[in-house]
């Protein structure tokens, strides 16, 4: 059997693939954070909670309203996105002129409230969401058994990530968004409704998190704490990629998934910390992040 550094090739390949799938989650979540930070300069600590709400919307939608997985893929992000817009309109807007720290504290507080209230009703053991029938089972790939659902997660996440990147970097709407954050007063003078644009952007960012939540529902137990466990890692990914860099968030997300996957083979004890080691290195050598522009 071919070995790579003492690990059979088959196991090695399997781990790479799994790492990539986890990386797809990191990419989706850090993309939403990067969009919100890049365009609104809000450090959105409620992002993990939005991911969790996406998963809960999926679960409760099925339990009480009979909404199936495929409908939830659209409806849950829509609902959470609208909820996010309300938060932006009612709360975040009022502190827009203050230091970033206030936005961070406010969103962190919101996250604790959402999590705490759901823990009160549902506990932390989590509930299971069934894998949609179409995606049950898996493929025998030669080096591993790949569940269909995980392949679908990778595909869906990558498509959504690159569509988002294209929209922001290559379309007219994206150009408005970028211009509106660069110089809001001037854009307003041209007749563009900048506050509306900001609300929509925040809504879109959290909808991306909710979309990741829907994808996660059949994979992990749906529990109120599922977001906070992931959020810190995702922030590290954003810092490594460069705060606010769209492409940076996507590429770094996938890359960190891979690095984490390899760590799980060679030194599993460090699997939870390896991303932070990379973050420290990046901060020392390139403080603006791998894809960030020097301020």
């Amino acid at each position, binding site marked *: 059997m071919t070995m790579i550094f003492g690990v059979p090739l*088959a196991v090695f390949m399997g781990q790479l693939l799994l790492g990539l799938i986890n990386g797809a989650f990191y990419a989706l979540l850090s993309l939403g954070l990067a969009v919100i930070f890049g365009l609104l300069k809000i450090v959105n600590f409620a992002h993990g909670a939005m991911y969790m709400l996406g998963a809960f919307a999926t679960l409760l939608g099925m339990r009480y309203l009979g909404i199936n997985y495929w409908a939830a893929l659209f409806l849950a992000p829509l609902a959470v996105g609208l909820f996010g817009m309300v938060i932006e309109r009612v709360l975040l807007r009022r502190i827009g002129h203050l230091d970033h720290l206030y936005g961070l504290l406010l969103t962190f507080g919101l996250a604790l409230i959402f999590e*705490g209230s759901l823990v009160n009703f549902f506990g932390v*053991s*989590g*509930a299971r969401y069934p894998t949609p029938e179409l995606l049950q089972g898996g493929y025998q790939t030669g080096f591993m*058994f790949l569940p269909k659902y*995980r392949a679908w997660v990778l595909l869906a996440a990558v498509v959504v990530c690159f569509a988002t990147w294209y929209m922001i970097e290559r379309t007219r709407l994206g150009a408005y968004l970028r211009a509106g954050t660069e110089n809001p007063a001037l854009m307003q003078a041209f007749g563009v409704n900048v506050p509306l644009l900001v609300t929509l952007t925040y809504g879109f960012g959290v909808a991306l998190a909710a979309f990741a939540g829907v994808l996660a529902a059949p994979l992990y*137990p749906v529990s109120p*704490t599922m977001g906070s466990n992931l959020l810190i890692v995702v922030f590290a990914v954003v810092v490594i990629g460069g705060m606010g860099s769209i492409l940076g968030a996507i590429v770094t997300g996938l890359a960190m998934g891979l690095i984490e*996957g390899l760590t799980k083979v060679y030194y599993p004890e460090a699997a939870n910390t390896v991303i932070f080691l990379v973050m420290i290195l990046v901060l020392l050598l390139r403080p603006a992040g791998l894809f960030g522009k020097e301020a």
Partner: protein
Amino acid sequence: MTFIRKTLASSIAIATTAAMATAAQAEISDGAVRIGYLADMSGTYRDLAGPGGLEALRMAIEDFGGSVNGAPIEVFSADDRNSADVGANTVREWYDTRNVDMVAGLVASSVTIAATKVIEENGGLGIVSGSAASSITNEHCTPNHIHWVYDTYPLANGTAKAIVDQGGNSWFMLTADYAFGHALEGDVSRVVQESGGEVVGGVRHPFPTDDFSSYILQAQGSGAEIIGLANAGADTVNAINTASQFGVVEAGQQLAGLLVFLNDVYAMGLDTTQGLLLTTGWYWNMDDESREWAERYYERVGSMPTMVQAGIYSSTMHYLEAVQATGSDDAQTVREHMMRQPIHDFFARNGRIREDGRMVHDMYLARVKSPDASTHEWDLYEILTSIPAEEAYRPLSESQCKLVQN
């Protein structure tokens, strides 16, 4: 100066009143029995002890009548967030500012080991109900704590032995990388080898972990017949779910959940867990006495109690009875009395506290029911056999505890 004099004068006045009150109530220090409940109230281990355990503690106090020999029983609680530092500091604060008499709960083994050191330094008493590590009454034993519900030794003795006896000879261990996981892994490996099996590999995962796919893949690659899960709570749930996604059981491997709680089985559902063998210290539906208590608990909490929550009630009752009988809340006086009294209640059968602080009682080997065999949502286990108290736990002759003369 006037201020200082006044404060001093009033402190003396308060102290005198307090002293008079105490004198009236025999030896119960400062006129009240104070119980501090320390547990994970919000994280991975919340549902197996957490707020439900606090409610069980309150039930015990209410059933006892709310006071001992006229001294009121006070309860306060804190969330240790599964952090040894937070847990130890909380307990230290309870001694410094709140005169805690007994520390209850104590869930994550790492927290318990740190907290019992503080309890020992302060000459207090702790009753450990949630933790699993057998080292708590072995190398980490103190004269100041008692370990109530279960530990990793009977878990291994029950589940691992039963599985090897059924022909599961080669094992791959998936271990939570901290005190409890290491203790369970050690105990299971020993039992597997003694029963004629072999541990062919293993991996230690960080605590807590959401994504087990990588570890499950390694376990599949090992070719072992049995994948032993030396973890607990949400980690076990995640590992079992991931294994079912990767078709582990269909491919011919079998999972062994070495520490599975009632709430875990409930969360995963019988479709995923049916047939799972497990060892438990108590099950709510095992007889009339258990059912009667469990139903009262269910009325208040809305879910059936785990063995830990039941154990918190049982141990608190035993403690309060000892305080009443001795008329004292002094740790050693109470502990000695507790050790002299056999324990036989809805929770413990043939129970007694040994000199190492281990409360030994009958344990049970159970199998998770199939969805067809289950008659309602909490009808989850079938009890197969009971493991007698004296066989279930580590014999004192093998003990490394400083309190045991070997």
